[in-house]
């Protein structure tokens, strides 16, 4: 891809390695090698692997996870939610993800839920189970906060097990295959491709700041410095975009990406879909049955 933008020499060699890896799904792994030194927050810790879940066709996984997420989001009963959580945990077992990383992720992702636990039990109208001065914790509030926590985590676990295990490049192609608009898929692939490049740029700028003795504080100088940092990032991205586009034109780009990757629907995908359909139907039955009771 076109290089030759601002700090040429230094990064050219490093970026050269990822050139032309556009269509290869293991691009992210290669990028991660380079990023490790920075402890990049952009790594995809779950996408590499050879577990049964990793080997399934991404299209089937996307469809099943989307249906599951919608079902869980509308669920209002504990029975369906708990069953959904159990299903999500089965998928997690199928994906054989490192449990420590999964737990850490869940802890961070649940920050919004923690906020709800602090407020909902105190403000939800209902019978008080515990009083402390003017504050009363209501039973309904606790029940509601619990339900939300279970629903939220069931969806996130399913997302981690079935979709975060697809490398983003493959995901873009799968979404294209599932008839999402061309331009949207191209935007996804391009944005993802340049995330790592710009993150490198960002670290270089941060290093330059640190060398000059910059210490962030709550003052105008800090804000101005960060603003210039962000602005410089935008300027460099703009320059790079021009080069990339010209390089693509040189190579005859006319609005389509050709992928060497072919999706193949295999027997295990049929088995997965065959198991997922009755499971989702059972969730639906459980939800409606419990609501009518």
């Amino acid at each position, binding site marked *: 891809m076109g290089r030759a933008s601002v700090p040429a020499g230094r990064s050219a060699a490093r970026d050269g390695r990822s050139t032309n890896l556009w269509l290869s799904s293991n691009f992210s792994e290669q990028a991660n090698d380079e990023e490790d030194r920075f402890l990049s927050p952009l790594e995809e810790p779950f996408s590499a692997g050879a577990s049964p879940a990793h080997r399934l066709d991404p299209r089937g996984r996307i469809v099943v996870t989307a249906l599951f997420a919608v079902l869980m989001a509308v669920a209002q009963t504990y029975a369906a939610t708990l069953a959904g959580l159990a299903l999500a945990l089965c998928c997690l077992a199928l994906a054989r993800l490192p449990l420590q990383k999964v737990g850490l992720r869940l802890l961070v992702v649940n920050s919004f839920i923690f906020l709800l636990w602090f407020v909902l039990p105190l403000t939800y109208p209902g019978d008080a189970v515990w009083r402390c001065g003017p504050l009363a914790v209501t039973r309904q509030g606790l029940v509601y906060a619990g339900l939300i926590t279970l629903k939220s985590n069931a969806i996130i676990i399913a997302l981690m097990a079935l979709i975060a295990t697809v490398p983003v490049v493959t995901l873009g192609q799968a979404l294209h295959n599932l008839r999402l608009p061309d331009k949207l898929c191209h935007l996804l692939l*391009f944005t993802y491709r340049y995330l790592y490049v710009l993150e490198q740029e960002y670290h270089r700028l941060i290093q330059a700041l640190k060398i000059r003795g910059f210490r962030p504080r709550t003052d105008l100088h800090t804000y101005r410095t960060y603003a210039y940092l962000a602005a410089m990032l935008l300027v460099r991205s703009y320059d790079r975009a021009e080069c990339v586009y010209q390089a693509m034109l040189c190579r005859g780009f006319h609005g389509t990406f050709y992928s060497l990757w072919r999706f193949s629907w295999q027997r295990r995908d049929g088995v997965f879909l065959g198991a997922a359909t009755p499971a989702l139907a059972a969730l639906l039955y459980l939800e409606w049955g419990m609501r009518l009771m």
Partner: protein
Amino acid sequence: MHISEGVLSPAVLAGGAGLAAVGTAIGLKKLDYEAIPRVAILSAAFFVASLIHVPVGPVGLHLVLNGLMGLLLGWVAVPAILIALLLQALLFQFGGLTVLGVNTVTMAAPAVICFYAFRGLLRRPGTPAAVGAFACGATAILLSGLLVAAALITTGQAFSKVAALILAAHIPVMLVEGVITLFIYLFLQKVRPEMLEGLYA
């Protein structure tokens, strides 16, 4: 602030998804094939910029910059923000799939509104443009906060206190974003004025 999965009611989720789909369709229509690399690399830059944590007293707030994104991209900011949120859900599991629509609306609607509201002010050089840039950054965050609060309150009255808390937390972010958007605008005007040409389109 992203709303997590499983919190909002089905009606709000469906409404958000519908609005986001319409906005994305308009944005994609305005996006030429030739512009895709430019828009994508710019949104990658915004994504990385949102990893910057700015200290405000004892806490670090991360930049959002949706106002600036609206200024530079107009309607195209909607698909760009949708992609950014999808990548956040995939890479960090922040936000999620069913709330993707609602979160896109809460971030992208202010971007588009600010694009139209402050375009006139930013065309006039000097102090009006500076005021416009500050107002653009601050208003985008205020509107985002209001939309998040609205999404929570339409889900259920039980969330009114949570919504109020979230809105209050947006006030310092608003000021910081305003100042930072102002400085970024001034920098771009000096260094790469052609990037702001979208304003004059």
